[in-house]
Each structure stands twice: as C-alpha cells, then as structure tokens.
C-alpha cells in the first residue's frame, strides 16, 4: 500500500526505549481515562435514594411554622435532591 507515512522517522524509532516507554505511559493513561469514561456512562447510584425513609426529615424545614410536610418539596428521585441534610 503506497503511503505518505513514515517520512520523518525510520520505523525502528518505534521500538526505541523512549518511544516504548512513551507508548506504555500513554497506554496506562488512556486506560485510566477510559475507565473514567465508562464510569460516567454507568448511571450514578445514590444509595440514600434506594433506602425507603432516608428522604424523610426529622422535622419540617419549611418556612411555614405549622407545616407538617416532612418530605419537603424536593424534586422526585430522578431530579436531583437538594444538597441537604437528611441527617439534620
């Protein structure tokens, strides 16, 4: 296959110690980033959302004194929850 490639370096450069180490270094990095990419593709698991009752609050946090809502008006599971304290 005719090709314009290989115009600058001899092919032996690829098996030189420096390029070999560079290739291994890049390989490790690429696998690291690929792992992170796969992690981002997997749906995030929020354990607190899976346990019933974890979203219930000890007391109302509403601004209305007589409110009895202890779940607050947080958005449902798939929307995100306030970075708030279930523990408070």
């Amino acid at each position, binding site marked *: *296959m005719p*090709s314009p*490639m*290989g*115009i*600058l*370096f*001899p*092919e032996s*450069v*690829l*098996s030189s*110690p420096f*390029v*070999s*180490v*560079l*290739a*291994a*270094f*890049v*390989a*490790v*990095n*690429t*696998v*690291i*980033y*690929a*792992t*992170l*990419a*796969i*992690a*981002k*593709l997997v749906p*995030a698991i*929020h354990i607190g959302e899976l346990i019933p009752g974890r979203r219930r609050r000890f*007391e109302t*946090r*509403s*601004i*209305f*004194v007589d409110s009895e*809502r202890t779940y*607050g*008006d*947080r*958005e449902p599971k798939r*929307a*995100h*929850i*306030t*970075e*708030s*304290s279930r*523990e*408070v």
Partner: protein
Amino acid sequence: MFQRSVGLVVAGVVTVGAMLLWIAVSYDTPTSSYALGEGIFGMWSFLYSLDVPTPRVIVAAIALAIFFAAGINFLEWRVTNRSRRSSNAFKTPLAPKLVMAQTRHVYAGPMSFTVLIPAHNEEASLPATLTSLLSQSHRPERVIVVADNCTDRTASIARNFGLEVYETQENTQKKAGALNQVLSIILPDQGDNDIIMVLDADTTLDAGFLKSGVVRFESDRALMAIGGLFYGEPGSGLLGQMQRNEYVRYSSQLNRRRGKVFVLTGTASMFRSRALREVARNRGGLVPGTVGDVYDTQALTEDNELTIALKTLGALITSPAACTVVTEVMPTLRTLWVQRLRWQRGALENIGAYGITPPTLRYWAQQLGIGYSVIALTSFLSLILITILALEAWIWFPFWLGLGIIFTIERVVSAWKGGWPARLLAATVIPELLFDMFLNLVYIKGIIDITRGRQGSWGPGGDTKPDVTDGELPGHVLKLGAR
C-alpha cells in the same frame, strides 16, 4: 507566599505524578514489538498489530482510576456531611443545624425576591434579559438594574421597563464592587425569607426559574443559595457548538451529582439574605476579603469565590434541574481565550486565597485533574504523531481502536441532551479534541500568568492589586462570572 505560587504548586504536583508513573512504566520494561498480522476483508487487505499492554498494567491502570475517582468523591462526601452536621457557630455560622435552630417556630413573612442586574454598557442584551425576567410565572417583587460606569442607554432602557436603576458611585472594582455598593444599601433591611438574586445582563432565564426557587426556599429554610444551570445561546457556528456541548456536559454532571454545586454561577444565582450578610460579616476572618463586602473585590471570578465562601461557612447550596438559564457563547477564539483565561486564573487565585481547606479540596482536585490531562493529552497526541511519521503503512491497532470507540461513545452520550448538532460534533471526535487542547493551552497560560503576574505586581512598592485586566475587551469587563 502560598497564593503567589499556587500555579507552581499545581504544576509541580502533576509533573511529579506523571514522572512517577513514567518511572514505574519504564521499570516494567515494555516492549512494543509491533508484530504485524495481515487480515483480509473482502477485496481489502490490511495490516494490524495486536500489541496490548500486559493484563497487569491494565489492571493497575483501572485500579488507579477507581482509586482517584472514589477517593475524591469520598473526600467530598465527608466534607459535605461534616458541614451538614456541624453545630459550630464560630466556624460554620451558616450550617443547617444552626440556621434551623435560629429560625424554628419563627415565620419571617412570605418569600420576596430582589433581583440585581449588574450592567456595564449592556444596552444590546438588557431588553431580552428584562423581558425573560418580567415574564416569569413568579414575578420578582423588586428589580434593580445596577448601572456601572455606563456610557450607553443601559439606565434609560431599564427605566423604560419601569424598573429601579442604581448608578454606582466611583466604582473601580467592576462587577464585585458594583454589587457590593448596592448590597450595602439593601441588605440591612432584608429578612430571613428575602432572597437576593444576581442576574447577568446578558443572560435570559428559562420559564419557571423563579418559581422553582420559591418552592425550594419555602420548603427548606436552611437552604442558603440556588445556582442556575446554564446553556449556551444558539449561533457562533462550530465554536459556539463546542461551548454548548461543554455546557450541556456540565449540566449533566451536576444532575448526576444531584445538584451538588461547583460554582453558583454569576449568570443567575439566588441567595438567602442571611447567607450574604454572614459572608460580609466574616470577610477578613473565616473567609478572605474586606469585612463588610459581600463580594471579594480581589477575586477575578467573584462568583466562584462566593461559592467557596458559602461552603466554608457551612451553607447548604444547590443547583436544581429546573433552574436553567441561557447565556452567551464567545463568538471568536480570541474572546473565548480571554474568557477562559480569566476563569482559569480566577479559579487558581481563589483556591490560592483559601489555601488547602476541606471545602476547597474538590477545587484543588479539579485543578490537578486538568493539569494532569494536559500531560496525558499532549503525550497521547505526541505518540500518535511519532507513530504516523514513522510507520510506512497504515496499521490497525485494535486495542487503541477499542479505547477510541469507548471515548467516542462517552462523548456522544454525555452531549446527547444537546440535540443532534451536539451529538454529531461529539461523534467526529477530532474538533472536540482540538477544543480540549485549546483549553489546555489556556490552562498553561493561566499558570504562567499567575506566577509571573503576581510576582510583578506584588513587588515592593507595587500595586497591591494584580493587574488582571490585561487583554480585557471593552464591554466584557463585567462578565467575569459567566460560569
């Protein structure tokens, strides 16, 4: 001293990290044999190499990735939980427990919104911003356009909308200074259910933004701030699309994090007045700056700084999925360069000002992550270049091809919500790779600038304020916080 060398610290840590990895892999004596096989696919024959790192190396790399990702998430989780549970009124005066205790059985009246719109010569974009604001299902009780050193019709446009205009007095400290002036006047009269919203004059709110804020603030009196999720405006061709993709990914990331905020965006954020008062009270003590100032006028990215200040004081903050805004995208590489350099320098200066503290750990990790990706991407592209320039025929590397496919899928999926233009751009890979390289160059320039700039301007008898406006474009001086 620490603040001056923040760029060098970050660069040093990532370089040492990369060197350690380099040494580790060189001890492993890798051999790239490039042993070739020849395959035939129909009429077409091709060369391939089954060079693959040893399973040991692959497992080690995966373990490293999991270790870092899990470690950072664990640290952040611990820090967040610590402020949630804190009852230390001296260190975390905005912690939920304390706020709850102070407001228990007290009704401070209905929610009231005061919107501040800092504007410096914004006659072109202001009408759209005001229209989107005034057509919200929950109309704000008060809107003040903060006209800062305007020489155009900004103030008269605001008055034509029937709105209040506050013209700054001898303000030389840009957006932060302008907001501080007006906040010093209105904050003392604000109650616990009074919300201050800061809205950029080049940002339009999506319908339901304020309503969603009302619901959140009403249902949680310990909630101190809500940040908007921003999307890029249409237009500006390929460069605009790249920024839109970036913003879509950022929003998706926040959704995955269930609204855990990195930055309460300067484009549109809402604050309970108690939060702003506490920040002003604690400046010069728990958080940097001048006591009495809500915004730190020394900070280049004052929205990022205020976010770190609130987290330091233990405040509960979030970015709900319903609070979205559309913000401008930079139309040219030059304006994008200026904007990103400001963000980058600002982010570094902010963490430098706070030092290494639990609330800033995530931000340090972010800087180290970007720093390392500069090294990783550069070495990756170098290897590709060397290989192409040395090989005499095209060779397929299934291992690398496989990894490339994984990355492409991730890019497309993460940009999916941006629609077909976003997905197509992501699928082509190369433009976004170049865009990343552009951002990496900005990162390096930011580190060089912060190191040189600080040394230059903080020398004996020099100006105490670093000269951060170099290269600033007219009309852009107030848009420091579009993130």
